[in-house]
């Protein structure tokens, strides 16, 4: 559904003026620099919609006699995991570890424990269910550069999809991105997968913003069909480079003002975002299918002094795994989507495995409200494809593809994405091996709070939208 919106949805939409064309004043009109400005990064608020997320109360918990994938490639058999006060305390290789007083003990014989699943590419909330036009808020398709829009301002916290991703997928952290109609589609937001009344109360504390960029077919089709630039791939890159050149100038003016003071330059919200990228505080999350285009984008990033954190939907990444590794750029991919559009024609199921074998940073992603419920199975497919062509990929290593790797590409690897002591206790207890199609999450904790329990209907979230509807509170 979302995919068809992204591929074919660019119908209506007026060619609104591009607010990013507002220019800063020329240097000669500014007064002489004062002795001191507000200080680096203090010219304007970088966090006007701060996170109000709080962890829910949770009991100190010991999961015992389980197989553990720690999310960083470690595996522990007949082991135990202890978490307390929302944080991971320790993995005990010896399951006889004494729980201590007041600790809830769960005997998980035959079951598996992993860090919560992280999806680096989701549109939950901004393309929610039901997928009606009134709720379709993922693509600001009125100009090819809308770096000024923030996906968080479209997120509807009542999307039933959040609950499905938690209960069926064990997803505890997800990045919500603007769509891919635009070259620069706006800022992403990283959320904890915990329902709240407001978007701010789902916001992952301390996670950097992302800038969604897009290569290829979508921007050129959307704007070419409106008779405006870009209508070609060369047009895509030209508009990108012109915009980065303006961003560099904007950054110079604000850097100077923040250091030396004087009259503040004009604010431009799109340029704020791009300046954040050039400063390294906002991470570029770049939709890009074709290998040749990724190579061009990485050169463009060097030209303007930024770094691409990850290419998303990188179906041809396998062709340039060495180049991605050399550029320290990750690839986020599907297991086996292919052929639905021209730039997806060369997709292969071995994509992720080849990237991984070549030492590039690789991960799974969903881009889909259904796929996000089965990312463990998508990783299982990608691993199986690699094994089939002779690669040796352990389960515990493959689990990095939805744990520490996406955490790194989101800039939150110090907080979540593995079961290292001190990290957020985002934990899934699976009722079997999560590489099997026959396995489902049994319990899911976010920051140590039990947010889903398959055996307890009271621990199954029901969004406002589903109250009083047929099937309310069903197992789904």
């Amino acid at each position, binding site marked *: *559904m979302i995919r068809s919106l992204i*591929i074919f949805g660019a119908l209506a939409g007026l060619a609104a003026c591009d607010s990013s064309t507002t220019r800063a004043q020329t240097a000669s009109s500014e007064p002489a620099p004062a002795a001191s400005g507000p200080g680096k990064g203090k010219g304007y608020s970088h966090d006007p919609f701060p996170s109000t997320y709080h962890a829910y109360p949770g009991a100190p918990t010991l999961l015992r006699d389980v197989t553990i994938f720690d999310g960083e490639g470690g595996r522990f058999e007949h082991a135990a995991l202890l978490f307390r006060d929302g944080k991971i305390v320790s993995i005990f290789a010896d399951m006889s570890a004494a729980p201590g007083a007041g600790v809830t003990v769960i005997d998980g014989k035959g079951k598996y424990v992993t860090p919560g699943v992280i999806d680096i590419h989701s549109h939950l909330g901004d393309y929610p*269910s*039901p*997928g*009606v036009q009134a709720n379709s808020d993922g693509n600001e398709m009125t100009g090819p550069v809308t770096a000024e829009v923030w996906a968080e301002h479209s997120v509807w916290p009542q999307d*039933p*999809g959040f609950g*499905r991703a938690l209960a*069926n997928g064990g997803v505890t952290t997800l990045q919500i991105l603007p769509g891919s109609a635009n070259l620069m589609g706006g800022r992403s937001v990283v959320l904890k997968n915990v329902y709240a009344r407001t978007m701010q109360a789902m916001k992952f504390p301390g996670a950097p913003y992302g800038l969604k960029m897009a290569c290829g*077919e979508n921007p050129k089709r959307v704007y070419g069909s409106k008779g405006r630039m870009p209508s070609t791939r060369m047009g895509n890159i030209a508009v990108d480079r012109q915009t980065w050149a303006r961003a560099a100038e904007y950054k110079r003016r604000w850097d100077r003002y923040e250091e030396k003071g004087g009259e503040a330059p004009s604010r431009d919200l799109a340029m704020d975002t791009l300046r954040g990228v050039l400063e390294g505080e906002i991470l570029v999350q770049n939709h890009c299918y074709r290998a040749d285009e990724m190579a061009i984008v990485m050169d463009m990033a060097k030209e303007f002094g930024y770094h691409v954190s990850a290419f998303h939907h990188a179906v041809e990444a*396998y*062709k*340039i*795994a*060495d180049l991605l590794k050399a550029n320290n750029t990750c690839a986020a991919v599907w297991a*086996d*989507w*292919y*052929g*639905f*559009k*021209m730039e997806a*024609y*060369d997709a*292969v*199921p*071995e994509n992720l495995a*080849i990237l991984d074998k*070549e030492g590039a940073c690789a991960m799974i992603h969903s881009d889909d*409200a*259904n796929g996000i*419920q*089965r990312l463990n*199975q998508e990783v*299982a*497919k990608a*691993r*199986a494809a690699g*094994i*089939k*062509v002779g690669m040796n990929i352990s389960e515990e290593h493959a689990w990095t593809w939805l744990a520490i790797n996406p955490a790194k590409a989101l800039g939150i690897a110090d907080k979540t994405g593995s079961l290292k002591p001190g990290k957020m206790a985002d934990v899934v207890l699976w009722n*079997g091996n999560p*590489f*099997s*199609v*026959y*396995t*489902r999450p049994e319990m899911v904790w976010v920051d140590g709070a039990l947010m889903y329990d*398959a*055996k307890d*209907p009271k621990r199954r979230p029901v969004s406002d*939208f*589903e109250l009083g*509807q*047929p*099937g309310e509170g*069903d*197992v*789904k």
Partner: protein
Amino acid sequence: MTKQLLLAATAALAFAFPAAAQTVAITNAKLVIGDGGQPVDGGTVVIRDGRVVAAGPGVAVPAGIRVIDAGGKWVSPGIFAGFTRMGIVEVDGVDQTNDTGPGNVGFHAAIDVTPAVNPKSTPIAINRAEGITRAVVAPDNSGSIFAGQGAIIDLGADMDAVSKPRAFQFMEWGESGARAAGGSRPAAYAALKNVLFEIRDYIRAPASFNDRSKDAFLTRADAEALVPVLQGRTPLLVHVERASDMLVLLQLKKEIPALKLVFVGATEGWTVAPQIAAAGVPVIATALNDLPESFEQLAASQSNIGRMAAAGVTVAIGTINQDESRQARWEKQYAGNLVALTKVPGATGLDWGAAFAAITSKPAEVLGMGGEFGSLKPGRRGDVVIWDGDPLEIGTSAVNVFIDGVEQPLENRWTRLRQRYLDPKEGVLPKAYQR
């Protein structure tokens, strides 16, 4: 050089014209018949003249025929994809390769996917390599609730793909039917009623049927295509999601008992499962839809199929609106997930045998062709797959695929691309020279 060319040409010929149907026995199999039963060890399948002769644990192998020792591997009927648009699209986003819809022409029910099926399309080769051997191929609608006539195809590597042309008529109902009919459910209902009147007119006096006046609703060709539907000779597959919409159609079936109605999608089917079962209407359901993606899918649950089956509805798995032009291969994963539900408190899934039947014998039965396809019972087409594991489990591959008793090539663009790029770096010559 010449020899290489000759070898290449021979290989190409072999690909274009697979060997004729063999007489072959597959022995020592973990055998799945596909009729809902569990696998049995030590099974044998015998195929002759493109059909299953016998399958079971105590089957004798005729002398002098090819014998494949499965070595304990799983052997089953090939997957029968319950609802697809495979073979009529190469790249969905490239219009010239997408023959799913009628475009702007005035024909609807008369549309027949048969001339569009391209046995050489990439999705057919990819799905064949994963053990999909037959598929329901449906057209998509535009400008009418009637989409046209679908076919049953095989996925063999030959140029004769259509096993049964005009196997059914496909109709959109609910929200998409309403949109096609002008914007509302009553409009769609009126359109349907009117079409039924017109077909009766056509049956009475085909020669004087008026399809030329400006207020005519139906072309002659459309009317002709709908006659066997009205007479119950051709099944009518209807995409319907909301419970109340299904009940409207069940009422219609009461008025026209001959209609061979089949529901497709049926997200809210579990809420009216007893009525569907009582009416004897089979269902090709979407397996894992659990989101209220529209207001006609509010009751969505992965337990839908399990609950309908428990109520006595004949249910198969299909993939409408789920990348149906290329991902029939996901049906195995979907079926596996339905087995997973049996371990989730409060959910209703299918046991392994029923789940496997939902992607083999059940789709064939739903289409009224259970005697021809979908299982390894004697007389069925020789669509047989040897797997290197449980076919519903992730990572299991098809090792040998037979369609109509012909062993199939398993190469495709996926295998070629990955072979070229297993080492992504270029060698002494560019990648374009590496094959």
